[in-house]
């Protein structure tokens, strides 16, 4: 469960968030929309616990239960998918790590390239790996910033299916340009101007 109360965020003189309220519980799905530069990313970073608001409060769950996927997939270029996921799996104390990693790589169609360095991947494949990383520790709060970016139709379908599975049990905050795609799952909406 995450709750933001009257959150304002300023960068220098520029005010990006202005007294924003947001609250998402397990099973909730907050859909955040708005044009580029409107503050979506900033809000998501605050809700994930990566940035502190300039004023206002944020109530965050335990760090171990948060999964964040930003505009970057957050994976090491020089390592392979297996190495990346084993590292994060270790840091997140994921039980039965090898099985879980195998299962996720299969699901997102990366099993065949599991031993290739990420720097050989296309943007879409890196994004898929980023999704694997985010889901690895079964977060109860998933904060996803434009996760459909760079995904081809197949990848997007995989993400759709995954969201269908996790939405009822986790709290999800998702920012996107293409709200139509996940409209069906949204329980709350926040539109930035």
């Amino acid at each position: 469960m995450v709750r933001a109360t009257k959150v304002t965020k300023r960068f220098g003189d520029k005010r990006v968030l202005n007294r924003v309220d947001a609250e998402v519980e397990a099973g909730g799905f907050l859909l955040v929309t708005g044009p580029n530069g409107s503050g979506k990313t900033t809000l998501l970073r605050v809700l994930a616990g990566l940035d502190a608001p300039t004023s206002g409060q944020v109530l965050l769950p335990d760090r171990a239960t948060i999964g964040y996927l930003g505009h970057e997939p957050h994976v090491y270029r020089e390592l392979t998918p297996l190495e990346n996921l084993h590292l994060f799996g270790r840091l997140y104390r994921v039980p039965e790590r090898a099985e879980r990693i195998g299962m996720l790589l299969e699901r997102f169609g990366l099993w065949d390239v599991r031993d290739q360095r990420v720097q050989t991947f296309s943007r879409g494949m890196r994004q898929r790996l980023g999704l694997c990383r985010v889901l690895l520790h079964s977060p109860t709060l998933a904060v996803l910033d434009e996760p459909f970016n760079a995904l081809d139709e197949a990848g997007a379908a995989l993400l759709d299916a995954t969201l269908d599975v996790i939405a009822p049990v986790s709290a999800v905050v998702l920012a996107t340009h293409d709200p139509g795609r996940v409209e069906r799952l949204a329980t709350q909406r926040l539109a930035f101007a």
Partner: protein
Amino acid sequence: MRFFSDVAALARKDLLIELRAKETVPAMLLFVLSALTIFHFAVPAGASAKISIGLLWTAIVFTALLGLTRAFVPEREQGVFDALVLAPSDRSAIWAAKALSVLAFLGLAELVALPAFGLFFSGVGWHGVAAFALADIGICAVGTLTGAMAVAGRARELILPLLFLPLAIPVVAAGVGASIAGGGKYLAFLALYDAVFALLSWGAFEYVVAQT
């Protein structure tokens, strides 16, 4: 303990990345050899061996700075730093692992630099080698912490030397002393420096990287 296995996993990751990218260590090696060559031309004939020892220490400190500037680059690409900081593991494990890997790179550079120095100028005695070993620990501990500070801001490569060099002065002073005069007091001082600043850096890293 979980902390140590986290450190091991992260340090292994850093070494693996360097093994594959082969960017930092070759640069450090080339840098230190170039620096020593320049020093040959910078030191007039008949100058005492002591001057060259001082220059060796200078070269090592700046080689370390080169390695430290590169230290957090893999994390900055692809935004991995966010993912590491969010993980439930102790953030100071990131510090320890990074310091260990830079220590390894610096050690490799010295493995080449010290014999080269012996070739170009004069040998470094055992006291000198021990001094370098101890000094490296302090340099990497403090350098990794200041490296994280520098990376958080705007002018990162510019700021790191400014933050790091004043802290390195005591190390150089004692290191040169140990290399020239021997004697336990310099090595004891270096050990003290290492203990104090490693402890401080370990404790402070959490505050330096956390945003909330």
